[in-house]
């Protein structure tokens, strides 16, 4: 039987097309598959728990076969990100749980035009972190319960964050730092210890249809200009007001019922 790497090499040479690599069928670890892949290859990861730090420096698509709940990647070296994408364009990571890193679940550095979909980045320092990375799409990710930020974006422009969830992080839900022309659409950002969404020194961003509830502060803008905020829900203090209103309604309902009973029973 030919070694897996040789099979892949032959397949790549003959077809001159992108190859699909399976983990753990072709390679036991995701990192091994990444190292032995060529640009534009697709790596399909079967369900299971993997303990490793994955470094990506070329255009690749890495997908889990059964979604984020079935494919869980724990950081082997905690001081490194679980997925580190550096100086690589058009990287796609789809359907993983990335957890246990003291840096980030998914970390992009100078990487552009990528897609990060349906991932769960929980219990890291930051869920998803972008530095100097432009025009990436992050959608349907869950970045909950991280030590600092759910999603942190620094010096990165033209990214789209859509339908992500960033709840119960210990600092901010989504933090844009010196980043412009990003679109934040339909995200859910609740119960974070400080700001739901913070824009610092960030201009010309679009925040539309986001739910930003029960954070210390909902949407905070500092040194930021020309940002567009449309139809965001930021009912920061409803949880204090609503019970009081309901008790008042209860008193009114009691008075109404009392008068009704007087009317009906003629007491």
């Amino acid at each position: 039987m030919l070694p897996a790497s040789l099979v892949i090499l032959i397949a790549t040479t003959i077809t001159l097309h992108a190859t699909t690599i399976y983990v753990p069928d072709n390679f036991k670890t995701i990192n091994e598959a990444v190292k032995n892949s060529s640009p534009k290859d697709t790596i399909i990861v079967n369900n299971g728990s993997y303990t490793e730090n994955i470094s990506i420096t070329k255009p690749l698509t890495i997908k889990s076969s059964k979604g984020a709940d079935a494919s869980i990647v724990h950081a082997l070296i905690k001081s490194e990100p679980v997925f580190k994408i550096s100086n690589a364009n058009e990287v796609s990571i789809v359907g993983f749980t990335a957890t246990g890193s003291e840096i980030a679940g998914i970390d992009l550095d100078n990487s552009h035009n990528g897609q990060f979909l349906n991932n769960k980045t929980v219990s890291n320092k930051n869920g998803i972190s972008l530095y100097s990375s432009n025009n990436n799409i992050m959608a349907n990710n869950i970045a909950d319960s991280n030590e600092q930020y759910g999603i942190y974006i620094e010096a990165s422009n033209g990214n789209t964050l859509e339908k992500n969830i960033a709840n119960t992080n210990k600092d901010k839900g989504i933090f844009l730092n010196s980043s412009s022309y990003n679109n934040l659409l339909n995200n859910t950002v609740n119960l974070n210890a400080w700001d739901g969404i913070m824009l610092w020194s960030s201009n010309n961003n679009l925040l539309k249809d986001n739910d930003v509830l029960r954070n210390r502060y909902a949407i905070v803008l500092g040194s930021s200009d020309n940002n567009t905020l449309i139809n965001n829900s930021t009912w920061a203090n409803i949880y204090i007001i609503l019970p009081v209103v309901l008790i008042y309604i209860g008193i009114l309902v009691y008075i109404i019922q009392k008068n009704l009973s007087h009317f009906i029973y003629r007491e």
Partner: protein
Amino acid sequence: MFEITTILASLGLILATVSFISGLQAVKNKGSADSKIHKLNGYLSFVIYILLAGSSIGGKEVVRLWPVAAWASGLVIICIKIWVVRSGRAYKYASWVGIMLIILWLVIIYTHIQLGSMSFLNL
């Protein structure tokens, strides 16, 4: 905008408030109208409590001990309240148990506001 659990919890707090006030008035005035209002609103809020508990526990893939214990504790408080009033024993503490029911509903409303099942206490 609001989820069904938020609406149910809000309705539950309103009915519990009505039941609490009418209960105090029933003890004070010995009026049958207040007693009827107390019972009607008490039964309705109990039904809503069961619906909320069922949707909360049944709506999760994995049933965890902590939410079940929390909902069961609430049920115990409701049962104690009914027992205290019906048996006539410890009747003087009935209003205190009533206050506990209001606090119970405040906890429920707080955990169900806006976010539905994704609540602060994750019940």
